[in-house]
Each structure stands twice: as structure tokens, then as C-alpha cells.
């Protein structure tokens, strides 16, 4: 039961001008260049997006308790991404006809999003994104993080920021850009070929689960968070009731129970430098589900368990002229595939998968920038989980290996702080287990190399 990788998945990382309108501060107060956060941006997020410097409509009690605090303007933003993707070699025609699909794709728009991003109440704020994507052709909920936050000041003038977040993508609530939801690539093609394997915490369950977690940050340095996620399916309908729930065996990949999530990070700042090291992870127990009247499935009995544990780091050097950052993460997943193995959907009952990503980013005057990134996914050979194709196909593996490695090079031009033009090239050294003939039908890994041109506007 392999999940398609998030390596080149639809981009999810955004920053929005409604925060700038709310705080009265320029984008660079919170970002190096959007969407990468600096220390102030991380603290703004930890404080629940509530820092507000606009005139407020207020309501208070006789004891001066604040009951309402509304800005004159709602914190709304819009975003559009328009892109062009060119595959190195065209894909086989999906009809099986002796020909090829087009190798160039125009996405107009690739995404169009509306955000509510800002304060809701004195200690409550939200980052809520609704997106139209041309791949789905529909409008749906995207990354969402709703928070309560407050702080406590100790006698020795140290601070403790604490809060709760409810969100729909593990790591979307995180403060650093080394974790999956807001990690590099900040935008990528949705018209390329995605590798066969990815860990669950690496975007696989984005918008498919919802969770609540409690967090605390001491002295703007030490961050800890604990939470749980449950399945929160979009578009799933219970066939008996015709309602949005409860979930039954007709729905695929349903969490058996609450999935625990943890995060621990330490940030140290000196001069123009900031360094973070941390760990995060979650355990997901999933029923494969996906049953039909002719092939029923149960949300009980054997399940698959994915234990994800990751390390991450982020170094930033931030000056007026030069901005540099180096970010990395390694996610290790242990899979207990009892359900898939029993159903003949995996060759092994125990598999592992490891994804590593490192990226270096540089900007001059926050206007001209570039990124060089390396990615690698390795794991157990499993000829059933990562199956060979019976006819020419591209998201397959002839040798049963999920190994995919490669590089991303990106050039950026930011004429204004809310507009970005990117040229991105992705090269695959290995794809689904091999560098040559990875699918058994003579397609090489480099055939999936993509050139991606993106115009990205936020307002």
C-alpha cells in the first residue's frame, strides 16, 4: 500500500499579505523571502497570528475583560500560481496507442487560493486556505491552522509562549521550514511524474486528517509540542446514511485511532545567525479500507502501522543585502504492513522507508535568489508494494525498490515582495529503483526530469 510521494506534490507553502496588513509590517519582518520564516515570523506564528496593529472594534466587560477585538478589515488574501512544465521525455499515451502525450503543460491557474489569515479574537488566530487546483478541477480545503496562544512572563523576564492548534496536515503548524508542510520546494509542478513512495508524515495525509496539539516555547528557544490526529476525509460519504460519516470500509486509508504526533526543537540565535535542530514524528495506524459491495473491506482487524521519526535542522544568515539558509530533514519510517500483507498487497509484513532532503538558499537584496536541493528516498525492496508494470507505465518499479534520488536547482526573481518568478529544474539520478530502465519498458530516471516555470502572486 504505497503512497505516492510528496516530493513533487502540489505546493502547499504560502505566506500572505493579510499578515502584513494586520501588523503594518513589511514582509521581511517575518520572512527572509516568502514563505521562509525568520525568528520574528516564527514567534508571530507561535503567538497565534494575533499581533494586530490595526484599529479595532472592541467589546469589554465591566471588569475590562476583552470580549471582542475585530480589525476594521478582515484579514483576507488571494494567491494565484500560473506555471509551465516541460518533461524531459514525453510519457506514453494513456490509451495504449503507439504515441506519446504532450510533454509541455500549461497550468492556468495551477492554484488559486483565498486565505483567511490573521487574528480572530484576542488570543485566537487562523491560517485558513481554500484552493482551486487545476489537477482536481475543484475547490477544496487546503492547509489550515487555527490557534489559541498566550504567554506567561516569569519573574526573571523569561517568556513562555503556549497554545493549542487544530490543523489538517501534520507539520503545517510547525515554525521552521525544515519540516514537510512548509519545506522546500515551496512550489513545484503538478504536471510531472511523482515517485512511487513517500512517508506518511511527508504530506501523504495532508488535508486527509485533522488534529489538535498543545505546544509551548520557552524563552523563544526551546519548543515542544504533543498532539493527536484523526481521519478527516473530504468528500467521503457513508453509503448507508448518505452523510459525511461515520467512516466505514468503503473509505480508503482510515486512521484506526488517534495518531500521536510530537515535536521538539531548539533554536539558538547569535548575531545575524540562527540555528535550529529538532526532531518530530508520528505513528499512524491505518486500515486500508477501500471496499466495495463486490470486494468488502472492514475497518477492524489487521491494520498497517507507520512509525515516522525525523530529525531536522535549519541554519539562517540574515543581513540586509545577503540572505542564506541551509535546511535539512531525514524522515525514517518503519512499516508494519499486517493488513496489506494479509491481503496480498505487500510482499513483506515489515518494510522501511527513509527520505532525506537538504537545500541551500541564497538571496541578494531579497530580489535575486537561487536554491540547490538534494533529495533521496531509500527503503526495502517489496515487489508487491512497489509493483512492476504489466504495460508501459511510469509510476512503477521494475525491481521493487522505492529508491529515488535527485537534485533541484531553482532561480528566483522577486520584483516586489509579493510576487515571485521561478525557474526550477529537477533531475532524477534514480527513479523508483533504478537510473535506467526503471519501469522495465526502457524509461530512464532522467526522462522524468522537469523544467518548471512559475509565476506566483499573493495579494
Amino acid at each position, binding site marked *: 500500500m504505497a503512497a505516492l510521494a510528496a516530493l513533487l506534490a502540489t505546493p502547499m507553502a504560502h505566506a500572505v499579505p493579510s499578515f502584513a496588513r494586520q501588523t503594518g509590517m513589511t514582509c521581511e519582518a517575518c520572512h527572509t523571502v516568502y514563505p521562509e520564516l525568520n525568528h520574528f515570523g516564527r514567534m508571530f506564528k507561535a503567538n497565534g497570528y494575533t499581533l494586530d*496593529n*490595526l484599529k479595532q472594534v472592541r467589546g469589554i466587560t465591566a471588569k475590562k475583560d476583552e470580549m471582542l477585538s475585530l480589525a476594521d478589515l478582515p484579514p483576507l488574501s488571494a494567491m494565484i500560481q500560473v506555471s509551465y512544465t516541460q518533461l524531459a521525455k514525453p510519457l506514453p499515451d494513456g490509451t495504449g496507442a503507439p504515441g506519446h502525450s504532450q510533454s509541455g503543460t500549461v497550468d492556468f491557474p495551477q492554484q488559486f487560493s483565498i486565505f483567511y489569515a490573521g487574528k480572530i479574537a484576542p488570543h485566537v488566530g487562523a491560517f485558513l486556505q481554500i484552493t482551486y487546483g487545476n489537477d482536481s478541477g475543484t475547490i477544496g480545503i487546503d492547509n489550515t491552522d487555527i490557534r489559541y496562544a498566550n504567554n506567561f*512572563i516569569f519573574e526573571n523576564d523569561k*517568556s513562555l509562549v503556549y497554545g493549542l492548534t487544530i490543523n489538517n496536515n501534520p507539520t503545517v503548524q510547525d515554525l521552521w521550514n525544515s519540516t514537510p508542510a512548509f519545506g522546500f520546494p515551496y512550489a513545484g509542478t503538478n504536471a510531472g511524474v511523482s515517485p512511487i513512495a513517500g512517508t506518511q508524515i511527508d504530506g501523504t495525509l495532508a488535508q486527509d486528517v485533522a488534529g489538535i496539539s498543545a505546544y509551548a516555547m520557552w524563552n523563544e528557544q526551546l519548543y515542544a509540542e504533543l498532539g493527536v490526529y484523526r481521519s478527516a476525509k473530504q468528500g467521503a460519504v457513508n453509503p448507508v446514511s448518505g452523510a459525511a460519516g461515520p467512516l466505514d470500509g468503503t473509505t480508503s486509508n482510515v486512521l484506526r485511532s488517534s495518531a500521536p504526533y510530537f515535536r521538539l526543537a531548539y533554536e539558538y540565535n547569535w548575531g545575524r545567525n540562527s540555528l535550529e535542530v529538532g526532531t518530530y514524528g508520528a505513528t499512524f495506524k491505518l486500515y486500508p479500507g477501500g471496499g466495495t459491495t463486490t470486494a468488502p473491506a472492514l475497518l477492524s482487524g489487521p491494520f498497517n502501522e507507520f512509525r515516522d521519526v525525523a530529525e531536522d535542522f535549519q541554519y539562517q544568515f540574515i543581513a*540586509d543585502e545577503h540572505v542564506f539558509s541551509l535546511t535539512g530533514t531525514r524522515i525514517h519510517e518503519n512499516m508494519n504492513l499486517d493488513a496489506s500483507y494479509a491481503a496480498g498487497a505487500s510482499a513483506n509484513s515489515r518494510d522501511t522507508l527513509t527520505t532525506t532532503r537538504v537545500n541551500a538558499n541564497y538571496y541578494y537584496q531579497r530580489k535575486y535568489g537561487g536554491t540547490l536541493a538534494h533529495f533521496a528516498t531509500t527503503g526495502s525492496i517489496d515487489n508487491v508494494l512497489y509493483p512492476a508494470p504489466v504495460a508501459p507505465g511510469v509510476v512503477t518499479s521494475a525491481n521493487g525498490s522505492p529508491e529515488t534520488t535527485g537534485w533541484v536547482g531553482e532561480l528566483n526573481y522577486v520584483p516586489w515582495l509579493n510576487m515571485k518568478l521561478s525557474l526550477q529544474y529537477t533531475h532524477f539520478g534514480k527513479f523508483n529503483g533504478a537510473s535506467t530502465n526503471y519501469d522495465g519498458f526502457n524509461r530512464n530516471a532522467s526522462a522524468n526530469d522537469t523544467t518548471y516555470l512559475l509565476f506566483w502572486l499573493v495579494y
Partner: protein
Amino acid sequence: MSQRHLSILLGLAASVLLVSAHADDLDAATRAAARKVAIGTCENCHGPEGHSILPKYPVLAGQHANYLAAQMHAFKAQTRGDPDALGYMWGMAATLDDDLITGLADYYSRQKPEAGKLVGGPALAHGKDLYLNGDPANGIPACATCHGPGAEGSDAFPRLAGQHSQYLIKQLKSFQSNLRNVAVMHGVAQGMKSEEMEAVALYLQSLGPKA
């Protein structure tokens, strides 16, 4: 110092005194509210107790309350126009009321001033000479005349000792270009070369509270 400079200086001093903070009048609730804002919000950039870590943001610890209050009023009124003031502080100061401004100014003025950071090598001696004696031949007055021999400042003029050199250089350039429109400092900075700004800024950064 020319008579014109002297009159501008006196005018500036008078205007600073007009917005003088009345810290003695502060009640406990205002002090507590200011402390919470300072540690909960201002600290994100200006560092613990105003000891800023990132040189983009000025050190506030030990700065004179009158000067701090005057700057916050200028941010709020959008009359201080250097790029970082405009990009950061116009927003942050927009909803500050007079009591909170006075409380914040009082909080930071009570913090222990920054210790000096000795970097700069040979430029330090040049910077010291410029700071103490100026360069009369090129129309640069001695900074110490207003800011004090140890750059400790006064009610009317800011403390410069221990301030980040990068911040000081940016301010001198903003005075020079009039982005930060202070007539007397424009007069001081207009004849300064970049290396002179750097030398005097490095010297000031090296000064501790007892220099």
C-alpha cells in the same frame, strides 16, 4: 559648531523635552502592561531586556526614556522615514497609546546598558578621533559634544555606546539622505564618507556602559 547648527540643536533638544516621558507618574498596572509587551512582543526583535542579538535591530537596553518615547511617537506619527522604521515600526507603533509608550520607554531605560564589543582594529582609533574631535576641516563636528564623552547620551540625545555598528551606519546614511529627517544630524552626516561612518560606528559599538 555654526550658529545655525546650534539653533537647530537647541530646537531639537526642546522638542525632545516636550515629549518627555513622565516615568515617575507611571502606575503599577502600566508598568506591568509595558513589561508584558516588551518581553512578549518587542523582545522578538530587540532581544532579551533590549539587548538585541540581530544587528539590524537597535539595542534598547539603557537607552534614555525621553529619546525612546520620542522615537515611538515619531513612528506612530509616521514622521521617521528610514526604511526599517517605515517597514517595521510604523506598524508596531500604530496602536501604542501614550501610557504604553511611556511605560515601554521606562522599561528599556532601566535595563543594564550593553557591554562594548571590540571589533574593528585600526579603524577604532580613527573612529575615536572623529567621535571626540570631529573633523572641522570637513565640517564634521565632534559627536561627543552632544552624545557625551563616553557616548552615554543624555535626556535629549541618545546613548550610542554599545549600539550595533550596522545600525549606527544605517542611521548615519539615513540622516545623510534625509530619509530620517533630522536637520542637525543631516548636517553632521552630510560630509561623512562611508569609511568614516564605519570607523565611528565601530568605535561606538566597542564602548561599554562605563567608558
